[in-house]
């Protein structure tokens, strides 16, 4: 178990390092000079040079990269090109907003998808199953960004029930959470349904039934304990999706989270800020994966006791 944790930690560190390195070079190797973007059009070269010096983008790439790494090693993520805010605190302030949105959405999705998916799996092709699948097909076909705008149009602009943008109390959560839940539940409900149907067909369920165990025990213990294992992976994948999808949802609802920050930073070519958001996203993401793996091992003795 300890060896497993250590190995995974090393692997995570490697992935994060790879991601930030890639990001560092990708954003610098393409045309588009941040200095030029910051100054008004027509600014003379001499002034631009000064700006470049200030930003540090005049130095050779390798120098910039080494500076970046040594800064990072000291826990300093630099300051934003725009307004000089420290990147670390700006990014870390935005993280709780994103996590709250994601966690609430994931929790609601799971609370809806599990009971409904299990109920549907009891009678495949029955009316409940068909209705569930039809609903999830439609939800799956509805792009989150479109849905978000439509919900905002209807409930925020026309009906004025909920605010359309920003985070000002629980009411602000309703629309972005609804959008995320509607995009998340189809996949999860299908996964739950499939895992339960497949597990119900397993030999050990048939054998347990042959022992005269009650249907309640079969579903509550034998099927659920096994079917839950692959679902952990799905939930982990979805958590990742929430993190990635946050960019879009957050920009629609102008949510003060890390996704919105990333998108702004990209459009402003704010190098330190892009690096910071990508780094933190990668860290959060790998941590989620790590916990998924741990849960997996805890639930499945075949993995744990290998």
């Amino acid at each position: 178990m300890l060896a497993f944790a250590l190995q995974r930690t090393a692997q995570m560190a490697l992935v994060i390092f790879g991601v930030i390195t890639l990001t560092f070079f990708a954003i610098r190797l393409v045309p588009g000079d941040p200095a030029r973007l910051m100054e008004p059009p027509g600014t003379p070269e001499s002034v631009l040079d000064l700006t470049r010096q200030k930003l540090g983008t005049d130095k050779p790439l390798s120098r910039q990269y080494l500076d970046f790494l040594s800064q990072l090693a000291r826990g300093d993520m630099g300051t934003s090109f725009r307004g000089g805010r420290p990147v670390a605190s700006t990014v870390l302030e935005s993280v709780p907003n994103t996590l709250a949105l994601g966690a609430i959405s994931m929790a609601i999705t799971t609370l809806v998808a599990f009971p409904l998916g299990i109920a549907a799996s009891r009678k495949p092709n029955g009316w409940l199953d068909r209705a569930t699948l039809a609903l999830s097909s439609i939800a799956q076909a509805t792009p989150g960004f479109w849905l978000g705008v439509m919900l905002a149009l209807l409930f925020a602009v026309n009906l004025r029930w909920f605010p359309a943008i920003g985070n000002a109390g629980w009411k602000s959560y309703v629309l972005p959470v609804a959008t995320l839940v509607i995009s998340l539940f189809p996949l999860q409900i299908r996964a739950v349904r499939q895992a339960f149907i497949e597990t119900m067909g397993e030999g050990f369920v048939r054998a347990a039934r042959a022992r005269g165990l009650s249907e309640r025990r079969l579903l509550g213990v034998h099927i659920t304990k096994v079917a839950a294992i692959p679902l952990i992976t799905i939930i982990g994948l979805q958590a990742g999706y929430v993190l990635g999808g946050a960019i879009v949802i957050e920009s629609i609802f102008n949510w003060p989270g890390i996704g919105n920050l990333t998108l702004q930073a990209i459009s402003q070519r704010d190098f330190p800020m892009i690096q910071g958001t990508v780094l933190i996203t990668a860290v959060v993401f790998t941590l989620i994966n790590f916990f998924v793996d741990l849960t997996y091992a805890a639930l499945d003795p075949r993995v744990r006791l290998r």
Partner: protein
Amino acid sequence: MIADPTLPETTTVASSAGAGAQPSLRRLMGEIRQRKVATAGLLVFLAILLIALLAPLLAPHEPLKQNLGDNFLPPAWKDGGDWTYPFGTDPLGRDILTRLMYGARSSLIISIGAVFVGLAIGLVTGLVAGFYGGFLDTTLMRLGDIQLAFPFVLFAIAILAVSPNRTVWHLMAVLGISSWVIYARVVRSRVLSERNKDYARAAQAVGASRWRVLRRYVLPNVWQAMVPIALLNLAYFVVVESLLSFIALGLSPPNPSWGSIRADGRQYMMVDPWMALLPGFAIVITVLAIGLAADGFADILDPKLTQGAFQRQPLTSSMPDSTIAEESENDLLQVRNVCIDYPAKSGTVHAVRDVSLDVAPAEVVGIVGESGSGKSTLGLAIMQLLDAPGRVTDGALLFEGADLARASNKRMNQIRGRGIGMIFQDPGNSLNPVLTVGYQLAEVIRANRAASGDGIRTLARQSLAAMNIADPDRVLRAYPFQLSGGMQQRVMIALAMIAKPRLLILDEPTSALDVTTQAQLLAELESLRAEHRTSMLFISHDIALLAQIASRIVVMYAGQVIESGPRDTVVANPLHPYTRALIGAVERVDAAGEERLEAIAGDPPDLRIVQPGCPFAPRCPLVMDRCWTVAPPRIAREPGHEVACHLYESPGSKEIAA
């Protein structure tokens, strides 16, 4: 579920059809037509695709032509709209319908192209990883893991954000690269499983090159599995493509795209909501259509997901009169004229046909037959554990005088375990993998109120010790996967014996075990029978094995009993040509001392067809004209020894009314 003998031809037909190279894709196309919803989805998608491809011919206007005098025109059905611009115009006076059609064009071309990029990369890497294995395999798959372990949208956004001019090719590549892992994994696992199958091995043994085997046997199966995956992937790309253009990272403007029309629409939502709504609907319809088609294909490839595994319903028809008349006190189990069907689209499989047999208290009856003979199906039917859609359609299964086929679900649940126990072929798959042996024993002990409190553990230990398990405490703590096959099967028997059933059905209980373990297990079963007077119905393909343990032997072929009688007479004097061949095959094996020979030339019959004559006729060495047209009657030769064959219709034998 690999080659489960309890599932009759429905599944084996499907999988063996896949083995015959070319027809698999065509079969898929043929079967999709029987599914209305999926076909509708496929047709709608093809229609959208056609409109998209023919946009330059169909569109009423130029996609980029601005007409500032005509900007913000409403759609035709609103006040002030007209049919020159059916869906109205955008802020630059461009026709929205035209832009939607061109949007479909770029969206679908990019998405389809991306699917092919991903498919191509995935196919190559999957094939290489699967065929060469080793270091290459590990590296490629680990690379895939890492890619999957990171939210790709973020990468796509970063890469596209920094590309100054985004063409169709950029988008195809970026999207395509994101999905290779999915394909590679499927291809790899297919290659691994296909290359180990007999036909691929055989082909390689006769010198067919690796790539020939690949092309002939592996690829057709791979293609088939790819269809639903590629469709779902396509649907996903349509959404992602529009998302990217929505956040201005798709095709560089002014090229129309569904996402960018949406984004334009968003700015003018108050003035003209249609501009925002229409592209959204276009995306929803397209993605929904693709999704429905994908579901249909997935369903064809894995019908279990819509069928479910176990859906028992008691038989409602009344019992045949003959059954009631024949009832006798002496027999524990009386199977009377039982028929079992598996309805299927390709034709109902008549797995068991008019089978009757008896098991007396403390008796061991053996059922022998090849896979597909219906022997395992019969065993499951007695337990009322048939997989959907199989069901008993006629006859009666009398256990202690009560009909199991007509018993309520509740009653049946009481009989299972307590009245009748069952041991299955694959012990590794019969124990719950994530519960300890101790837990599973305690659970059964509690369910039967066989002990309580501290007594549970004592009883659990005793029941393992009774199966000659030397170290019961270790086994109690173990998970099933930590035990050997023989040990797992002992645990299964211990579990079954806790409730002290009167009848134990054993479906090939020793087939998965080595010879030594097999012999030990048989001895243990024999002592159980002696001690508890448990009756046994022992199902096996091996008549030599049954000769060791059973006192009566029933031979099944094509779902029918073709011969039955006391062990000694059946073994010493087999009557039916099929039984003779079975025993002959055993003797040949004994003589050769190794390799089990294919018992009898020819294939088992297609159980969807009910032939008029003898089911064995196509393979019978002694076949006569009559055999093809007239069903052979059941004839009693010696006391209790019956055979269904025309050879014995001599005046001396007595025909039994069926």
